[in-house]
């Protein structure tokens, strides 16, 4: 049977009254404060009577004898438990209780995980400025490959361009600071430059002009690297005169901004066999090296090659 609306309202009002009592309000205060309760006074009074009767149950208490004996029983029992615990574990009273055994492997696992994570992150950070031949260089390369695998295809273009710039900067450092590394590593570096360039193109990230610029830069680096290798092998004497001490004025510039330093679009380099001819056509500086002879044409400013600084590609297009 459905409740009538009146009964529902009554129930709601009484419920509200009881909740006010629950909050610690006095019954008389509730009647005075909320006049709506006055019309249900008799009904509410019945609830209050029931409540006061329920409170009579507070008189149910344990006897004093039980209160005392139960406490003694607890102490006796606890003493026995503690003694047996002592005998079993041979530890003194009050000594620290052993930790929960299942926590040990969990703590060990978490510690190991955190240690490995932080140590790997630290190593990767330390390897940021490494160049081929350094111990940490392989870490740098592996971190890059991990980064590549976690990058979505749409973002791979800029990532490979960044890696390409890094490789070119590394090559520039090696060339300008005359760092002695093995041919194998140089070849690897050149290969990785080619690979990154190829990947940039695969992702269609470069426009025509950028592509051309980069291509020129890469060619410049390759040429100079090959010249350096040849010189070291004793076959490129012509260049040796130009590059006394291997110092290059463009070292810093090349390292920091490979793109701009090599952007002259005027490097025309041909190298074959024992003869190398480098032509810097921008302002008609032309240097040619062939066999054991060096031919220099300082028709205009004669800046780069003949003053023994730089490799000739850098200032060609000024």
């Amino acid at each position: 049977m459905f409740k009538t609306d009146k009964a529902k309202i009554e129930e709601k009002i009484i419920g509200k009254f009881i909740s006010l009592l629950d909050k610690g309000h006095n019954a008389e205060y509730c009647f005075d404060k909320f006049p709506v309760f006055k019309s249900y006074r008799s009904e509410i009074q019945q609830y209050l009577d029931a409540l006061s009767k329920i409170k009579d149950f507070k008189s149910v208490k344990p006897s004093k004898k039980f209160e005392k004996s139960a406490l003694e029983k607890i102490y006796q029992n606890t003493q026995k438990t503690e003694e047996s615990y002592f005998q079993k574990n041979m530890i003194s009273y009050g000594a620290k209780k052993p930790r929960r055994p299942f926590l040990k492997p969990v703590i060990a696992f978490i510690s190991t995980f955190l240690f490995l994570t932080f140590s790997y992150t630290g190593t990767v950070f330390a390897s940021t400025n490494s160049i081929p031949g350094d111990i940490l260089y392989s870490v740098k390369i592996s971190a890059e490959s991990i980064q590549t695998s976690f990058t979505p295809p749409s973002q791979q273009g800029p990532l490979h361009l960044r890696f390409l710039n890094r490789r070119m900067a590394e090559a520039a450092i090696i060339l300008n600071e005359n760092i002695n590394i093995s041919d194998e590593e140089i070849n690897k570096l050149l290969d990785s430059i080619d690979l990154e360039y190829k990947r940039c193109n695969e992702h269609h990230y470069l426009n025509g002009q950028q592509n051309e610029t980069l291509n020129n830069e890469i060619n410049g680096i390759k040429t100079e690297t090959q010249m350096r290798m040849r010189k070291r092998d004793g076959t490129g004497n012509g260049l040796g005169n130009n590059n006394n001490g291997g110092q290059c004025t463009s070292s810093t510039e090349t390292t920091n901004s490979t793109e701009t330093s090599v952007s002259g679009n005027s490097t025309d380099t041909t190298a074959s066999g024992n003869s190398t001819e480098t032509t810097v056509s921008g302002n008609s500086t032309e240097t040619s090296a062939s066999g054991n002879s060096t031919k220099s044409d300082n028709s205009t400013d004669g800046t780069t090659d003949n003053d023994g600084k730089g490799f000739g590609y850098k200032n060609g297009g000024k």
Partner: protein
Amino acid sequence: MDDLELNLSIKQFKKSGDSIYFEKIYHHFLPKIYRFIFFQVLNKQTTEDLTSEVFMKIYNNIRRSNLNSFTFKAWAFKIAHNTAIDYFRKENKSKNDVSFEQYVEEYNEHEIKDKNLIKEEKYLANELLLSSEKLMSLLNRLPQDQKKIILLRYVDELDYKTIGSILNKNESAVRTMSFRALKYIKEEINK
């Protein structure tokens, strides 16, 4: 004992292990736990056994747990609740086997023998027999959960949230059940 004092006693007992602090907690909670168990099992001897067991568990575990005055109440009553459930499960008792009248009889006999019992206690026991006999049978007719809620809310004055955590129910369900039980008692009393 107010919440602040209870909190302090718990902390001091955990820190020093001094029994004086445990006794403070014990004397405060013993009547509440005893009553809570008594109205479930309705047998004096069983109530005493179970109450001792509850306080043994409290004593053994209080130092291991991270408790404050609020969580302690819920925790202590939860132990009592679970101990009573275990008892019923063990004894396979779904119904109370001893009547309330029998309890009061036993109680009075015990009082007569106990010389230290004060007059007031005797008076209260007699009063309970006279005024609450009907109420007791009403209470026993309520479902177990409603009976516990009535006792915890209106006799021990615990809040609905704490009662909910003891009985594994949410606060609004406890509130509704409490009102329903109260309404039933009121109607039966006024019949």
